[in-house]
């Protein structure tokens, strides 16, 4: 447990050092990796450890982002960390509700139900255009930097994002290595056996949804913080599927895999955009290039390393305990 904390502190120190070396825009990308990592890590708990698929994780990000947005806009006196906690709580509540409904579903039915959430929930903004801003979303600036600190705001944002993400990851790592994690894995491997062993299968599944949704909500809140906007256009079903693909790409069932997946999501996008600019490709090509490249990489990785990028990393290293985070 202490090991996770030390690892996180070392990671935070490395990130902070890194933010001093790169330009302000790269700091935004570093922060983007952070919140995507958290979202994918949440999905890892749900799918990788508990065996429940979710095609609708973007919905929890949506809830987190709008919670932060609404609190910043309507309750401006609350400090940002309270907004983030509220985002986690709101998404967690949604996670419990979803989990309670989804615990009875399996396979394609579960996938369909969660996908419906991702498709349907962002449309609520059109139902309440005055309150939620319709498809224009809400715009705001989050004031979080104490007056004395004189660094570019994007660097500060990267710090805040990674501080939150690493804190959440430490909790997540401890949780999954402990009793809760064992229960989740038991349910994944054989529900009947887990039930016979005295594990409440339904409750365990709901727990997985809760943990996963809290991570998603935090990630969404951090995204809102980073971009200063919450709009339904960022929470399309493509986001949910992208997160799922990132998890597969990184390596299912491992928090390290979530990291590789998040890095791949951001790096591929940035790389192909720059390539398109350098080659002066037309808009139609340039806009589709990141997705196409992502698809190719995903296919290649799954064909060559079914365990994802982390599977490759693990194979290159000598024996390591399972599920190390």
């Amino acid at each position, binding site marked *: 447990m202490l090991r996770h904390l030390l690892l996180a502190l070392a990671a935070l120190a490395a990130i902070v050092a890194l933010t001093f070396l790169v*330009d*302000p*825009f*790269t700091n*935004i990308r570093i922060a983007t990796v952070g919140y995507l990592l958290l979202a994918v890590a949440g999905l890892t708990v749900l799918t990788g450890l508990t065996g429940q698929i979710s095609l609708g994780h973007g919905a929890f990000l949506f809830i987190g982002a709008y919670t*932060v947005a609404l*609190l*910043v*806009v*309507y*309750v*401006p*006196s*609350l*400090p*940002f*960390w*309270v*907004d983030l906690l509220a985002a986690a709580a709101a998404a967690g509540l949604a996670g419990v509700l979803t989990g309670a409904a989804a615990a009875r579903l399996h396979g394609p039915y579960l996938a369909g139900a969660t996908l419906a959430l991702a498709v349907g929930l962002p449309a609520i903004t*059109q139902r309440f*255009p005055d309150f939620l801003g*319709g*498809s*224009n*979303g809400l*715009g*705001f*600036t*989050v*004031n*979080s*930097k*104490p*007056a004395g600190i004189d660094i570019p*705001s*994007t660097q500060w944002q990267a710090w805040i994002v990674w501080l939150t993400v690493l804190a959440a990851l430490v909790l997540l790592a401890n949780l999954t290595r402990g009793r809760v994690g064992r229960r989740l894995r038991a349910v994944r491997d054989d529900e009947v056996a887990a039930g016979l062993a005295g594990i409440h299968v339904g409750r365990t599944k709901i727990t997985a949804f809760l943990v996963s949704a809290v991570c998603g909500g935090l990630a969404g809140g951090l995204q809102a913080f980073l*971009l*200063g*906007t919450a*709009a*339904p*256009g*960022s929470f399309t079903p493509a986001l949910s599927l992208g997160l799922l693909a990132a998890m597969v790409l990184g390596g299912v069932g491992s928090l390290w895999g979530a990291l590789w997946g998040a890095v791949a999501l951001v790096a591929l996008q940035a790389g192909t955009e720059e390539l398109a600019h350098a080659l002066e490709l037309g*808009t*139609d090509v*340039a*806009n589709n290039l990141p997705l196409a490249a992502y698809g190719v990489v995903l296919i290649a990785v799954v064909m060559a390393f079914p365990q994802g990028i982390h599977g490759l990393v693990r194979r290159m290293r000598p024996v390591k305990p399972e599920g190390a985070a």
Partner: protein
Amino acid sequence: MRSKALVLAAVLTLSACGGAGETPATGGGGSGDPAPGVTDDTVLIGTHQPLTGPAAPGYSTISAGAKAMYSHINDNGGIHGRKIEYRVEDDGYNPTRTVEVVKKLVLQDEVFAIVGGLGTPTHSKVVDFLNTEGVPDLLVASGALMWDDPAKSRMTFGFQVDYTREGKILGDYIAKTFPDAKVGVFHQNDDVGRDGMAGLEKHVTITSAQGYDPANTDVLPQITALKQAGADVVVCECVPAFTALAILTSARIGYKPKFVVSSIGADPRTLTGLLSEFGKRAGAEVSAPQLLTGLIGAGYLPDVNLTSDPWTALFREVHQKYIPDVPLTNTVVYGMAQAYTFAQALKEAGRDLTREGIIKVMESGVLTGPGLTPFAFSPESHSGYTGAYVFTINADGNTTVVQEPVVTDRGDGPIEPAPTGRKTPSDIGLVG
């Protein structure tokens, strides 16, 4: 354990001393440093445009027009020996993308200014950022009122006539021409609609106002509601794609109101293209001229068919030379006029170019441009064009002006004829 939690809470409270939604006491702002994006022989500017997405049909040619005008200026020696590099980023009319691409333009590409950022929902999300970073945010391509807030957003300037002024002018025209008509409004669900109706309501009573969301292209419910409300005149405060959708949907349900369209969605040639395209997509043969004949619209730039106008002559020449493959529409002209106006400000700012310098020029009120009404620019107002003219579309696709250019304010001020005696391109002598 308890004391630990207390300490933690105290630290957290201290580490974020202000509320998340409060404005910090110290603000950034423009400085006198050498301006980013400016070298001895270039000046780099950026913009965000909907090259894809719901607003792309119609608006994607604006940047093509602007690019052609910049090429024209660069090929004639540039401004003060500097060539203008124009970087266009596609945001798909998606506010989140706008935030990303504008941050990229400012932080990574280090542009001197953002020029003609397009869209109300999109650009509204980056105004705070640009003003905090001290980046000139010039000639925003939207008529929302929020660009005119010099006290809060000193870097931001509008371009086109704002929706309220335009609404007043259209409302006045409707009240005079169709005194007994029931007026309905079909509007975009944001400042476009709100600001526009604020102006309209000064002269007409709105029977029914129906909003659309740019992400949802099914407008049947709204058009049906307008029909049921018995509106004989429908004012469209919409982007071109939704003007076209409104016209097509009305035709489909046999509803034939008089359409009055605000300048952002009233370009005849763009609408003709959209109507045929949407019609084709729905598998129907659409006669665009028939649907558009009699449509009333507002404008503030010289019409593309007004060949006697010296500005139109220049635009036609630039179009012919640089982008002959792009159909010449009022939308293309819009991009060209915007680019010309920026270049003019650049010229006035002198060889020693700073961000503060160009803001001073914008506020000085020296800019006169292709438009048929003057700009409102001053230290107190960052509003663009101050009025508009009203036209109808003829069966041959040309337009007839039915209300000569008039100017007004956003309050209860009178609507007056616009001052005549515009400067011509050769009066301004930008290049050559």
